[in-house]
């Protein structure tokens, strides 16, 4: 069995990879501030800077120079990933800072990467938020194999939307490959590949139809597995003049034409003070607790955790008292 599937077969909804396809969409801002809100609600929350090579999550949450990072685990300076966990001033909030040296990443052997993914999946936290790097490289996409959940972040601009579709498609293809590597689907995958070698890569949307045509029972099982993914979409930096419906429309396009279900969980309003908070290395949600962007982030958390309206109101009240 493939090494990824040894641990990914267990359903672990508490791990949330957060990706955006493009730089500047606010992934690190969302990861850190959602993490702070969850921690203040009493959830033991770990943030992992998975932007391999160019990490900066530590700076956004006000830590200038982390004394230990993912590099120390990858270079075997420490034996376990737990040893790289840093406790943050906010109660219940923890951080694993990203690998600082690009060489750590360029030399990252496949087995090392698997070791890192396995170690993350064994960590014991209520929520683990992975701040992923920009782009659709294997190093980014592989983090989505850790979990059946994931958050895509984009901003209402054509370039960002173009890249989010690219990321969503890449993740979907990666998840299909992951499912097809499960032993009981291997025969079916080989038959599909024999019929059309580029079906998985070029036309993931048609692949399911092909699988269901070859073997209706197994094909339907694969469809059910793919539909169980809890992917979410957040639209960040939404200005007054932007249509509030874009996020829901993007999800509709993906479901209709890719067969992948993504739930839109909210618009986060553009706020000029985000820049100021990042420059001052201050937590935005703590400093501007009643801003529209903070209220929007609470709605996003509701969508992630499936909280009821009453719980969300309670979150609003408790977080800052």
């Amino acid at each position, binding site marked *: 069995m493939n090494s990824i599937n040894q641990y990914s077969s267990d359903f672990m909804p508490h791990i949330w990879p957060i990706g955006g396809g493009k730089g500047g969409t606010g992934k690190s801002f969302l990861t850190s501030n959602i993490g702070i809100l969850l921690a203040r609600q009493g959830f033991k929350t770990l943030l992992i800077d998975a932007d391999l090579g160019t990490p900066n999550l530590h700076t956004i949450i006000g830590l200038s120079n982390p004394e230990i990072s993912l590099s120390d685990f990858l270079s075997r300076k420490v034996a376990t990933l737990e040893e790289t966990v840093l406790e943050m001033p906010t109660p219940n909030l923890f951080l694993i800072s990203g690998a600082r040296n690009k060489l750590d990443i360029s030399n990252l052997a496949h087995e090392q990467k698997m070791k890192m993914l396995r170690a993350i999946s064994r960590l014991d936290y209520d929520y683990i938020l992975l701040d992923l790097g920009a782009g659709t490289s294997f190093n980014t996409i592989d983090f989505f194999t850790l979990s059946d959940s994931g958050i895509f972040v984009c901003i*209402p601009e*054509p370039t960002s939307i173009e890249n989010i579709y690219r990321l969503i498609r890449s993740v979907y293809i990666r998840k299909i490959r992951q499912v097809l590597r499960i032993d009981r689907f291997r025969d079916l995958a080989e038959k599909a590949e024999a019929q059309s070698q580029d079906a998985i890569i070029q036309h993931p*949307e048609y692949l399911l139809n092909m699988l269901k045509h070859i073997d209706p029972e197994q094909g339907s099982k694969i469809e059910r597995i793919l539909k169980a993914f809890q992917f979410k979409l957040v639209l960040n930096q939404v200005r007054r003049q932007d249509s509030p*419906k874009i996020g*829901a*429309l993007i999800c*509709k*396009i993906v479901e209709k034409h890719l067969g992948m279900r993504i739930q839109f969980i909210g618009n986060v309003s553009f706020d000029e003070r985000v820049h100021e908070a990042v420059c001052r290395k201050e937590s935005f949600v703590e400093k501007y607790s009643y801003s529209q962007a903070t209220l929007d982030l609470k*709605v996003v958390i509701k969508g992630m955790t499936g909280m009821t*309206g009453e719980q969300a109101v309670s979150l609003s009240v408790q977080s800052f008292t």
Partner: protein
Amino acid sequence: MKTVEDLNFYELLEVASDASPFEVHQAYKEMYQLYHDDSLASYSFFSREEREGILAKLDEAYSTLMDERSRSRYDQILIESGILQKEMQYQRDRKKLSPMSDAKRPRGNTALRIRDRFKPIVSSSPAIQDILTHDVLSGEDLKTIRDELGISLEEIAEIVKVRMVYLEAIENDQFEKTPSKIFLKGFLRAYAQCIGLDADIVANRYLKRIPN
């Protein structure tokens, strides 16, 4: 999952085979918003040829289903190929006499289907769910929900048979223009039901702002 080429016109517009022209028009508006040339949401997902193909099929679906004769001919093709059952076909004049007990519900299937169409949007929209956590609802809140659902006030007035002047007064919080509280409650309930909201919750939370 069917490809766009494989969808029949009803599936393409995501409407029932007995949908009224009003529902077809609404659905076309929504779909056009999704696929038109300047749609930010579908930007870059399709090639120009794919987009043109989808829009051409949408236009064909709309013009066919909005014209009574062409719709009837199209339905006949679907019936002959076993895709559509005759009793599921839209018939403009097919209206049964309602029992007296139903006299208060003259809105028929269209209203119910529109409500059913909006309900999943209501429950999955973070913005609407956020508004529904408010203890007190304002006209502005109702307008925001309606805008989110993409239905005009004129369309609601047509469905619920309430005069526009009252619906505008409700959304603008012009209490001096609204009717007495008991009628206002009825209008609020009809408005809420029409867009898939809980009638009692909306009416009670809105009326909290009006002194006895």
